[in-house]
């Protein structure tokens, strides 16, 4: 088990990949992943994300196959297991079964490396520094600066304290944080839950760009209209199982 070194060492982690202890294959800001061919080819790697019999005491089993650039929307009542499902895929909750990224088993990645590629963005974002900008380190701060206006956020917000942000502002900031990793898979838990229609539209434009660039998105949403707009497939969570709509 890898465990923290004694209390020496630098400040708390921002998002600077150079600071990770893992042997991360990371330049600060890799370009968005290229789209994979979407053919019906044999073999696992035709799918960006394959979820095989993923289950825990609390939810599942889940079976899903998603090619690159596809968006799957999951709707369903509160407490039906939508967040659990995303958390299991990101390996934040213990689960059995397998998840494969471009044909590679998740256990072949270290847990942090897996979570950098299969990024979970929680419905209620967490913050570990006082100021907004401290959560964006290195090249990621540049990325955040370019994203702010696109999501109708003022540039000055970077310099303010987290507690001064509105819920909607925090939600968009957290989304930028997740997008900054340029991961091949995004697991978005109600990414526009706290946003008005204008901001929601802006977020959807950005997400559509990511889809076009080949990112695979699993999205929990309460809005059937949003599922309709973004997703090619739409499943319902009922009693901790995924069922067709």
């Amino acid at each position, binding site marked *: *088990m*890898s*465990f*923290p*070194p*004694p*209390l020496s*060492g630098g400040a*708390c*982690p921002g*998002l600077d*990949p150079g*600071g*990770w*202890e*893992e042997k*991360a294959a990371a330049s600060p800001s890799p370009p968005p992943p290229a789209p994979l061919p979407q053919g019906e080819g044999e073999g696992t790697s035709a799918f960006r994300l394959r979820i095989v019999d993923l289950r825990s005491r609390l939810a599942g089993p889940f079976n899903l196959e998603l090619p690159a650039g596809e968006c799957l929307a999951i709707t369903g009542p509160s407490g039906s297991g939508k967040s659990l499902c995303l958390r299991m895929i*990101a*390996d*934040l*909750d*213990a689960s059995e079964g397998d998840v494969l990224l471009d044909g590679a088993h998740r256990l072949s990645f*270290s*847990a*942090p*490396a897996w*979570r*950098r590629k299969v*990024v*979970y*963005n*929680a419905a*209620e*974002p*967490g*913050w*570990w520094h006082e100021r907004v900008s401290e959560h964006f380190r290195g090249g990621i701060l540049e990325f955040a600066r370019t994203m702010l206006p696109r999501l109708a956020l003022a540039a000055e917000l970077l310099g303010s304290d987290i507690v001064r942000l509105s819920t909607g502002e925090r939600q968009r900031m*957290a989304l930028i*944080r*997740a997008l900054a*990793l340029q991961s091949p898979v995004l697991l978005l838990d109600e990414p526009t839950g706290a946003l008005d229609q204008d901001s929601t539209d802006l977020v959807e434009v950005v997400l559509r760009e990511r889809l076009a660039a080949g990112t695979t998105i699993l999205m929990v949403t309460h809005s059937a209209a949003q599922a309709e707009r973004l997703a090619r497939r739409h499943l319902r969570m009922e009693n901790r199982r995924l069922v067709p709509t």
Partner: protein
Amino acid sequence: MMPILLTPSDLAIAAVLIVLDAGLSLALRLALHTQLIWAAVRMVVQLVLVGFVLRLVFSMASPLATLAVILAMVAVAGSEVAARPEQRLGRFGNYAVGASAVAFATFLTAILALTTAIRPQPWYDARYAIPFAGIILGNVLNSGSLALDSLLGGVVRERLAIEAQLALGASYGQAMRGLIRTSVRRALLPIINQMSAAGVVTLPGIMTGQILAGMDPMEAAKYQILLMFLLSGGSGLAAVTVVYLAAMRLTDDRQRLRIDRLSAKARG
């Protein structure tokens, strides 16, 4: 120079003060007299018993008996550390963490003091080993329970922040670093306060005791200085051990935050 020995009648005269307190409680309707008398009786019985046990152990001059007494003290201190936090680690985790950290910090510090600074013959002489272990334990208990309470409470309070970092690819160690730091820091504040106030605000207990027992104040001060170093060393060791052991129990081989291994203390 011999200390002035107390006779039972000396104690009886002082006990009048307790009776006076009880009378005040009755007169002012504080409803404290029962508790007060009861606590006084308990105190007398406990201390007389300890006196007897120590006299016995000293006369036995057996390292095994000494070890047994110290282990019993460690066990009590460990359970105190385990009992403080609002949160409980599963599978008696609080107790395992508390007892092992307290034992580790106390033995290391006490053995260091006995073999290098005090050097009684033999070094495990009960007359030195037991009082030293006792004083160190008291402080180690304090810092250990503060550290554990701070870490377990912090994990619950800052769960979103820790998991947000994990979800963005931070290692468990990185995600916990801030909390680990504040927990150790909080645990060390009392001993820092104690050191900076020593002699100015309070005359420390050991020094007072040594002076009453007839020791030269300068010699007593040296004893107290040694002790303060031991106490801060022990506190630091205990805090760090508690925090790391508890943090390790809150994760698994995939560097998750296993908050499911925590449960709130049953109130009642």
